[in-house]
């Protein structure tokens, strides 16, 4: 039961019930689908990226509590942040989800720390990282375009 409480912490349950930035953006310049065809999780993420920054973000769709809360926490963490920051955060979270992170700093992570319980549930790592991978994909594309120019 303690493991379950680690996974379904208050923060997760709250972000599942009341996801933040859970809306389609009227004004966006990037859109990406995050899908897990095996379990049916399906989100669309909208981004307004200007001057190397995520000026605004929104998402909509359906999925389990872990994927929805993780998407909500992600959007809250990267809004108004630079592409660099967001990509670094993806790398950090990816290590946390997969249990490969050596040092997890609770203070630094803030609410995102609630997602660290996922590493104990290998079957759910994909749920937690779904939107993160989608975001990283978009940001990497922009990055690549920028660097090749």
């Amino acid at each position, binding site marked *: 039961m303690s493991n*379950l409480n680690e996974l*379904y912490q208050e923060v997760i349950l709250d972000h599942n019930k009341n996801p933040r930035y859970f809306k389609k953006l009227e004004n966006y310049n990037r859109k990406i689908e995050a899908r897990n065809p095996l379990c*049916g999780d399906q989100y669309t993420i909208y981004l307004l990226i200007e001057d190397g920054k995520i000026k605004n973000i929104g998402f909509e769709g359906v999925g*389990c*509590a872990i994927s929805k809360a993780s998407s909500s926490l992600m959007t809250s963490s990267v809004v108004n942040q630079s592409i660099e920051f967001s990509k670094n955060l993806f790398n950090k979270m990816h290590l946390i989800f997969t249990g490969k992170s050596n040092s997890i700093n609770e203070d630094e992570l803030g609410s995102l720390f609630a997602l660290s319980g996922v590493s104990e549930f290998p*079957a*759910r790592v994909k749920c937690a990282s779904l939107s993160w991978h989608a975001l990283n994909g978009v940001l990497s594309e922009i990055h690549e375009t920028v660097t090749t120019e």
Partner: protein
Amino acid sequence: MHQFIQNSKSENQIFDVKKIRQDFPILNTKVHGKPLVYLDNAATSQKPKVVIDAIQKYYESQNSNVHRGVHFLSDSATNSYEEARDKIKNFINAKSSKEVIYVRGTTEAINLVAHTFVKPKLNEGDNVIVSLMEHHANIVPWQIVCDEKKAKIKIIPINEFGELKVEEVNNLIDEKTKFISLVHISNSLGTINPIKKVIELAHKNNIPILIDGAQSVCHSKIDVQDLGCDFFVFSGHKICAPTGIGILYGKEKLLEAMPPYQGGGDMILQVTFEKTIYNDLPYKFEAGTPNIAGAIGLGVAVEYLQNLGYENINTQESKLLNYATEKFSKLENVRIIGTSKNKASIVSFVMADIHAHDVGTILDQEGVAVRAGHHCTQPVMDYFKIAGTARASFSFYNTLEEVDILEDAVKKGIKIFLG
């Protein structure tokens, strides 16, 4: 509760579940420190020791290629492989062993029929009828051949209980209908379809019909001659046999007229670069070295089921289904999806607005294995306007106590999410 335990005790004299559980080594597994409660039997059944032993024995003392060598081992492997076919022939009461084709499973069997029997008959504007409750394996092969031939798929609808609207079948059939492919028991709803009625309707209109028995062979005695269907397909792994082996039953005269599905060894009589003469049934459809150990395992598995007796299996499974249905009907925030009057021991359910995967994880922590998701039946989920369900599917080796553990785990999940 007490009453049920008493019932199960009196039943034990005839069908001793505790003793039967000892046939399945995996049932002793501990999951997260708790006894495994395996309720994912519709995905795959567990394997009794006799089947595991038969596979081991094959690799330790018989391993060889079939139908080829003149040596001792090849002879022994061939004999066991063909004996298994005869056992399966008797098990489903086929007229002849020629009608029993080894395939990898239900999916391959449906694809085989779609490509070699149905596709050559399809013309632009023709149609194939399936039902709304088909597994994707009985949808996608038809989409592939129908797309290629510019033919259509027609769908037999279901009602709110998850029952087939049989009365619609007659309206769907027209002169362009070339084939019907129908699931016997729905894997996500548990509904037992009135297949005999549909087979009769099909034949009245001279339309051949395939029955997808993936979920039915574990629950009910199949007599293909009595059913009269043209094809009947099932997987071994859902009836106590290993994965990677299944059966395509087809009427001999139809199979005779069909071209081979794959070319290769074993399916030929003579090969020259000018012309190849195909082998006789059933080998015409068994290209390449087959899953010999799997076939032998399947033979042992059907014997095991026959020894248990379908009456006993049904008694135990009905008891489990009734007990679970009664419990779940009383649970607040739980809704059973699939409430057909005629149902196999499958209970699909949704819990408030909690996603099926969260339910699955919570149950897993209690040692309970269920399937969570759309169960490869997305049209069914769309019909009920849900993303997925958690599905508890019971086998004869499950106990009423395990239903209690399931119920407690479900209550725990509700508490976590709804407080």
